[in-house]
């Protein structure tokens, strides 16, 4: 066969593969928006669930997720950032560095439900935190750690070597150089990674199943040792565990969760884009 015809056919198939994904993603988002939007009212967002979750709103789940995400980031950002600084600025090309990188890859690959088991064994049972915001946040924090390390490290490493050399040659110490030269230039990248981590933590269900999520708890938490409802778990519950929930309510909950996660991703993409435009090197 004519090689140019083969090429045409092959390229068409490759194009179709892309189109397929794009269309399906578009359809998924469109369906959720279209069917979920009518459910979104001020009351839906600010009321507690009523009548066995068949009516009322999703406030406790929304607030619970925000608490969990905040807790996760408070734990994961400092450790992740310092770990990234170590890998980018201090680590030599040694066996230890190789091991750390391998550990990060593995941490990123551990199934989310295994994080749930780990959180249950360590925080809930061993440390006796019980099923609580604290246990859930720590579990989610460890889960997003590799994401934050990888993103921060890339951001730090993209700062040109010459910046460091100039600073060091002026008599600044290594830490002063990092603090005043490297970090400020890497902030957009670090921010992007952090926000993506937030989005990931907000959407995960399996790690919070046994560490914090409450089936039905129509009140706001009083302390970090309380259980809370969480948006992804709430969606799971009303779609599979509670019969006869209004379809509108399910789609509405899915939409709020999707909007929360996607808006975080959007912010991250915008920051990255702006930074790329402004980049001076």
């Amino acid at each position, binding site marked *: 066969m004519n*090689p*140019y015809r*083969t*090429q045409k056919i*092959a*390229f068409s198939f*490759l194009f179709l*593969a*892309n189109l*397929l*994904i*794009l269309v*399906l*993603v*578009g359809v998924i*988002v469109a*369906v*959720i928006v279209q069917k979920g939007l009518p459910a979104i009212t001020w009351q839906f967002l600010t009321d507690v669930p009523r009548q066995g979750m068949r009516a009322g709103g999703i406030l406790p789940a929304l607030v619970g997720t925000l608490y969990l995400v905040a807790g996760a980031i408070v734990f994961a950002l*400092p450790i*992740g950032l*310092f*770990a990234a600084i170590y890998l980018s600025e201090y680590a030599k090309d040694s066996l230890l560095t190789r091991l*750390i990188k*391998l*550990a990060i890859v*593995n*941490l990123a*690959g*551990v*199934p989310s*439900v*295994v994080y*749930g*088991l*780990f959180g249950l*064994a*360590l925080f809930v*049972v*061993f440390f006796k935190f019980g099923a609580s915001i604290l246990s859930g946040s720590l579990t989610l924090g460890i889960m997003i750690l*590799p994401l934050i390390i990888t993103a921060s490290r890339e951001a730090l490493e993209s700062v040109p070597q010459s910046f460091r050399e100039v600073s060091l040659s002026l008599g600044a*110490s*290594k*830490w002063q150089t990092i603090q005043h030269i490297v970090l400020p230039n890497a902030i957009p990248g670090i921010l992007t990674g952090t926000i993506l981590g937030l989005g990931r933590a907000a*959407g995960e*269900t*399996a790690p919070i*199943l*046994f560490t914090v999520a409450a089936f039905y708890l129509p009140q706001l938490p009083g302390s970090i040792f309380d259980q809370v409802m969480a948006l*992804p*778990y709430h*969606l*799971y519950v009303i*779609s*599979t565990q509670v019969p006869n929930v209004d379809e509108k309510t*399910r789609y509405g909950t899915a939409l709020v*969760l*999707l909007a929360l*996660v996607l808006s975080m*991703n959007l912010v991250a*993409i915008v920051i990255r884009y702006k930074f790329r435009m402004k980049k001076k090197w």
Partner: protein
Amino acid sequence: MTTMRAVKEFVIEKLVLLCGLASIFFVVLIFLFLLKEGFAVFKTVNPFAFLFGKSWYPISDPPQLGILPLILGSLIVTAGAAIISIPIGVGCAIYIAEIAPRRIKEVLKAGIELLAAIPSVVLGFIGMVTLVPLVKTVFHLPTGLTALSGSIMLAFMAMPTIVSIAEDALYSIPKTYKEGALAMGATHWQAIWRVMLRAASSGILAAIMLGIGRVIGETMAVMMITGNAAVIPHSFVAPVRTLTATIAAEMGEAVVGSEHYFALFAIGIVLFVISFGVNVTADLFLHKRQQ
């Protein structure tokens, strides 16, 4: 003054090192706690009977704790997802890396990123309300909650991983390879098919492995759409239950310290070992490429 500064530098350096070691610490900690809780099950069931036992009745008396149906459930769903996602995923990667014009490339990458960002519980929900009824009517089944539904949904979750890593692999091939092929009169497609895919093969293999790793570990979507029947699967269009879904569905009812609880942790060990193996092997492939 100078000593103060030296001390500060020293303290910070050690602190930074400590955080650097945190990843290793957590991986080891996860494994140890899985072992601590999971190993207890082997006091009552021998490891062989646990892995290859054909019945999973954790709450009967005495409990029967054989996870073969669950392993096969995971395998069949994963195999289905792999068959769907590998050709489409690698195809997308080739198109994005080689063929698409700049503008379209940005749109496609954003779309893939969007797909990666959708929480699995949302995909599970969408699968439940759209895909499951569809599978039911197309195959005339009593229920659409089948391995096939799970495979289709999981294929989508594997796609972003496969596409982005395979695309990186294609990018990192030296330009001269392609130019050489084109200079000898090959068409663009011939250059891609005969030269670039081969040069990037280890990276693409790593992409596929990591994609499949993601599928094996996926929990929520699978639990919502595969029907959760802990029996040895005989067909693609029958309900199955995976390793991950078993943990997620049953841990809530298992009493802490019971045999059931230990057994669920032992399943966690199996999952951890699988993901460890997949990630280490994929990492080796990626490293090979870089050299």
